[in-house]
């Protein structure tokens, strides 16, 4: 028995009915995503949950997404469906069709990501589209790294194509892919996973429509988008309109990049424009616009409307632009394989704009300081042909590939310290050290918080971590570095100090570059010191008791407590109240501490 047989509008049960179906739709995309995670091959799919799944109305507007999705995927996938509808108009689609691409510009930013879109039919009529994205283990070309000079070097390109035609899989395309990637069984397996998870979603949706006896998603979709639109407008309307600018300098590959943003809070939308941003790089850290838009809108949503559902109505209220010729609007055939290094820095850029905005009642928005932001993954390999070393040194060396996800610190939050060794904005999980070591000769001798790396502040930045990496083999090994914040640190805010820069070096002291493939010679050990997040507020306003706690926990050194925070400790690490007062008074005579706008000092 259903309460939901399209009750008349004056029936109060109609409202409950709409909510139940909305909840069900979210469950449907969750089932879709779980199917993909359970069957996918790529480490980033299975260990890290780096997938996206969503349901769209027949005009290509996203109605619901699975919460597993990572921001770079999901928001670009949301746009991709429209490209598919342009190429394959709805009226030409048939039951059993599925469409595919890994186009970096019409999909999710690099060739490693495949997006599959599948129309769902009920009683012969198309009622919805399901889309999903995952990252495959290999796509041919140079492999995953920033060293390519054109997208052609980065792997095989599959334009928007039919994956299946009324149920018949496009074997020609499958054979071409199979012949061009290093791990064909896993890659082809992932493509089937993508298609079958959309099928699951479609079947569940049809079952829901049967149960509630609805013939299309117009009513439900309209309700979802209307409610979301209202909530989004309410969230935006709470903010004082204005124009806020920010500039952030980051490492780049061979020269620094300036990311320049101008964020406009209007009555009914928020616009972010990247005019003034540096031009493209010669290497694969360029960002197709779809990915720029995805991470920028994610950053805005986190601050402005974190609890509003991420669907077409919300995304429509965040308008992102980047003029031609910038690294954030990279055009074909620029290399884009590691576009995430740059893209993951974009939320920090929008945060810098939003930190200047105020709610209409005068309160500041809850904005964190800058953090590490791009992942600091350990991507190591060994064996003949994989390491830049004389062949005789590699003879007999064990061949291996290690890909594990790791992170530095996030920026301090208003009222709270940053998170130590935590991915943001990416949502991926790490790989256990025991798993990494079980599958390779790599041995990690140290993996712990990096003391004093969190930017000092009333609220401290999250700490980075230090990893010391060696091999049990007799041969050198290689690493592919995809790191940023090595030359330019995450900045603090409102008097908070910068987080520590990242450092990549050998135990003997030699520095390595933050980007590109490099060799760790035999007998050497690799040391990765990951950045810490920026602090918020003058460190001399931090409660001395909390500083003492940090020292006892080893997160902050006794020296830094003294120099950065003006806090003195006794030899037993208890707080020296008198000496602390004297230190802080002396410092205050030199500069008046600035209180962040959003709060009173702790004491």
């Amino acid at each position, binding site marked *: *028995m*259903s*309460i939901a047989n399209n009750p008349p509008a004056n029936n*109060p*049960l109609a*409202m*409950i009915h709409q*909510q*139940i179906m*909305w*909840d*069900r739709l979210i*469950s449907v995309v*969750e*089932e879709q995503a*779980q*199917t993909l995670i*359970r*069957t996918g*091959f790529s*480490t980033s799919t*299975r*260990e*890290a949950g780096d997938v996206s799944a969503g349901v769209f109305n027949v005009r290509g507007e996203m109605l619901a997404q699975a919460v597993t*999705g*990572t*921001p770079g995927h999901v928001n670009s996938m949301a746009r991709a469906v429209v490209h598919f509808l342009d190429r394959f108009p709805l009226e030409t689609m048939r039951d059993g069709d599925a469409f595919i691409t890994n186009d970096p510009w019409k999909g999710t930013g690099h060739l490693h990501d495949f997006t599959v879109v599948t129309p769902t039919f009920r009683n012969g009529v198309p009622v919805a589209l399901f889309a999903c994205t995952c990252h495959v283990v290999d796509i041919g070309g140079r492999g995953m790294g920033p060293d390519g000079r054109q997208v052609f070097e980065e792997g095989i390109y599959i334009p928007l194509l039919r994956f299946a035609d009324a149920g018949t899989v496009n074997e020609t395309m499958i054979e071409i892919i199979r012949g061009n990637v290093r791990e064909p*069984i*896993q890659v082809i397996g992932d493509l089937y996973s993508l298609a*079958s998870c959309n099928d699951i979603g479609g079947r*569940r949706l049809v079952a829901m429509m049967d149960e509630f006896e609805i013939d299309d998603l117009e009513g439900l979709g309209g309700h979802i988008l209307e*409610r979301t639109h*209202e909530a989004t407008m309410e969230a935006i309307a709470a903010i004082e309109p204005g124009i806020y600018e920010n500039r952030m300098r980051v490492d780049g590959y061979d020269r620094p990049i300036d990311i320049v943003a101008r964020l406009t809070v209007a009555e009914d939308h928020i616009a972010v424009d990247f005019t003034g941003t540096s031009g493209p790089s010669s290497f694969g850290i360029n960002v197709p616009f779809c990915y720029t838009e995805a991470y920028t809108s994610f950053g805005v949503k*986190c601050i402005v409307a*974190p*609890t509003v559902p*991420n669907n077409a109505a919300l995304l429509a209220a965040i308008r992102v632009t980047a003029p031609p010729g910038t690294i954030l609007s990279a055009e074909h055939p620029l290399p884009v394989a590691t576009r995430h290094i740059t893209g993951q820095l974009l939320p920090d850029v929008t945060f810098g704009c939003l930190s200047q905005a105020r709610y209409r009642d005068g309160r500041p928005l*809850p904005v*964190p300081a800058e953090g590490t932001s791009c992942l600091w993954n350990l991507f190591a390999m060994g064996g003949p042909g994989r390491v830049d070393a004389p062949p005789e040194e590699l003879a007999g060396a064990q061949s291996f590939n290690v890909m594990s996800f790791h*992170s530095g610190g996030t920026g301090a939050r208003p*009222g*709270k310290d940053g*998170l130590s*060794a*935590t*991915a943001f904005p990416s*949502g*991926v999980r790490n790989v*256990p*050290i*025991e*798993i990494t*070591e*079980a599958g390779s000769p790599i041995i990690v001798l*140290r*993996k*712990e*918080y990096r003391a004093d790396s969190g930017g000092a502040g009333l609220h401290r930045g999250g700490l980075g971590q230090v990893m010391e990496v060696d091999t049990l083999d007799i041969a050198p090994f290689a690493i592919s570095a995809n790191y940023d914040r090595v030359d330019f640190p995450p900045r603090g805010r409102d008097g908070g100090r910068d987080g520590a820069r990242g450092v990549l070096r050998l135990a003997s002291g030699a520095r390595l570059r933050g980007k590109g493939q490099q060799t760790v010679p035999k007998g050497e050990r690799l040391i990765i010191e990951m950045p810490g997040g920026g602090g918020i507020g003058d460190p001399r306003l931090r409660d001395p008791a909390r500083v003492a706690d940090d020292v*006892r926990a080893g*997160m902050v050194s006794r020296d830094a407590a003294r120099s950065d925070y003006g806090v003195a400790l006794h030899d037993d690490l208890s707080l020296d109240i008198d000496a602390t007062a004297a230190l802080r008074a002396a410092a205050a005579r030199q500069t008046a501490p600035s209180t962040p706008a959003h709060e009173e000092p702790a004491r």
Partner: protein
Amino acid sequence: MSGTARLAVDIGGTFTDLALQDGERNVTAKILTTPEAPERGVLEGIDLILQRAGIGPRDLSIIIHGTTLATNAIIERKGARTAMLVTEGFRDSIAMAYEDRFEQYDIMMERPAPLVPRELRLPVAERMDARGNIVVPLDEAALAAAIDSLKAAEVGAVAICFLHSYANAAHEIRARAVLQQALPDLSVTLSSEVCPEIREYERWSTASANAYIQPVMARYLKRLVDEIRARDIACPFYMITSAGGLTEVETARRFPIRLVESGPAGGAILSAHVARQCGYDRILSFDMGGTTAKICLIDGGEPHYSRNFEVAREYRFLKGSGLPIRIPVIDMVEIGAGGGSVASIDGLSRIQIGPQSMGSQPGPACYGRGGTAATVTDADVVLGRIDPDHFAGGSFALQGEAAAGAVQAAIGTPLDLPLVEAALGISEVVEENMANAARVHAIELGKALGERTLVAFGGAAPLHATRLAEKLAIDRVVIPRGAGVGSAVGFLIAPVAYEIARSRFMPIDERFAADAMNALRAEMYAAAEAVVRAGAPDAPLVATWTADMRYTGQGHEIAVPIPATPFAPGDQTDLAALFVARYGEQFGRSIPGLAVEAIGWSLRLATQTPAPEPCPATRAVAAPAPLRMTRLVDPASAERGEVPVYARQALAQGAAVAGPCLIVEDETTTVVGPRFTASINGLGHIVLERGAPS
């Protein structure tokens, strides 16, 4: 000599449930949990049920006990001051966890703090490699220094957590020996004993949680056992584990972490028992109490087992917001939706249920104990599903007006809904939440939901079961005898059991080493047998073996049942075939040509469950006159209609009544939906069938 009566006691978040079985006699009781001293509720309950059964302490033959105390100690952070000895360089692994955020958009989220603070995670130089070879010998001088720190810090428990100790535990064992010499009274947990499995975060999280609750649980068990003995109860006393097996108090003291999810496990055992009794091959087990709802699947009379569990989900009950515990558990999904779950309105004017629960103190608004929040139970009262004058056997009267006031204030007024619709909104949303949890859980197991039988128990489940069945296209619902205290009833049927899991990498190809694997399995069997035999000296045993296998290169393994017989050379072909078949079952396809590997092996050793009494056929008998009529809201029309109320004990075997109606018993009420017919089968279970009455 001891008597013949078997007694089970299950402490839940809101209620303490008791079930007593003596031959043909079954007696149950339900009282409010006493969180400040849980043993008091247990003893009160024992007094009550002995009195109801009219027997004395000497008539008991066994007491089986399950408790949420271990879970609560972690949730409320009321365990011992705990330290950790950890491989130098890795003291932050339990704080870094997965280095991720479980909530994508909330920049203010926090990961749960580790149970051991950083200054009590003491590094010790030592190192094994992944094959168990010593890379750095154990630094005994560092160990001595750590002991000084432990003394100074006055810790109550220590977890010893070294890398790759699942492959070679020598350093952990040596460290314990040194520690115990210096601090003989300290409780010590080895990660290689509590969870000898690869993946350091999960193993160490499990070990530190075990250490953290060990002193609390040891004290509780001692107090309880002393009190029971003081009441002249001399019979054996067992605990129930999260995998649904009975275990002696000694094992419970050593590995208290294995007790965390014991109540829900009892429910799954009951469902499996009902499945075997009635010949239902495929079951959806649905347990709903005051705080949460638990859903699990039973196939072929057995629940699914797993070793992944998360305790203390702090953030809206969200996956990832708790501490991972790797112990043998019955695989189930738990959501924050119980009778006491609070209903509220979110920023998009949607009704949200839970995970906050009012528990027993102050409880739902209708309890009249100071609670003002609108809960699921309040909605049930408004809808006429619960009779305020006959709740919990009439032990206390509910206040219908308080329920109506709370529902109106929390949902009706803000959404501009009449009272009845507001209450219906609450019940529809909570039922939809449970249906969605069941759907996602089924997908995770690669199983279908349709054509299952729903077995519903726990105080709140029979109120919502027929509506949940409709949402899942299920046509048959069973409310077992004793449903209101289902977990406790399940305890009475549980076998003595113990589970052991070990990580050991093994390629499933020509390198497969049958002899080495047989040696490992013999070792595992001997260890499990020692534990099981302590509780069941001569019962026949059943060994269930699984291998954790995957395609080479995949991140996660699936558990594949394998034969209990020792391996013979060449068995890799059969093992690979078993894996491919299981993979296909779960994911709908297999991948030809890909290599297969195993990374872990596990054994469940249990006493053989006696074949259940078959369900006798019944002859149709006339239904008794209803107790009374009541006004029940029809979810389809939101209209109140007069429906009959039957007393469960008045419905004889073979009696049938058509919905809509209510069937009441002391611990719960079964709502028979409009399209259902309820009949009492030959075992006294209520069987609700959808469709026209026959």
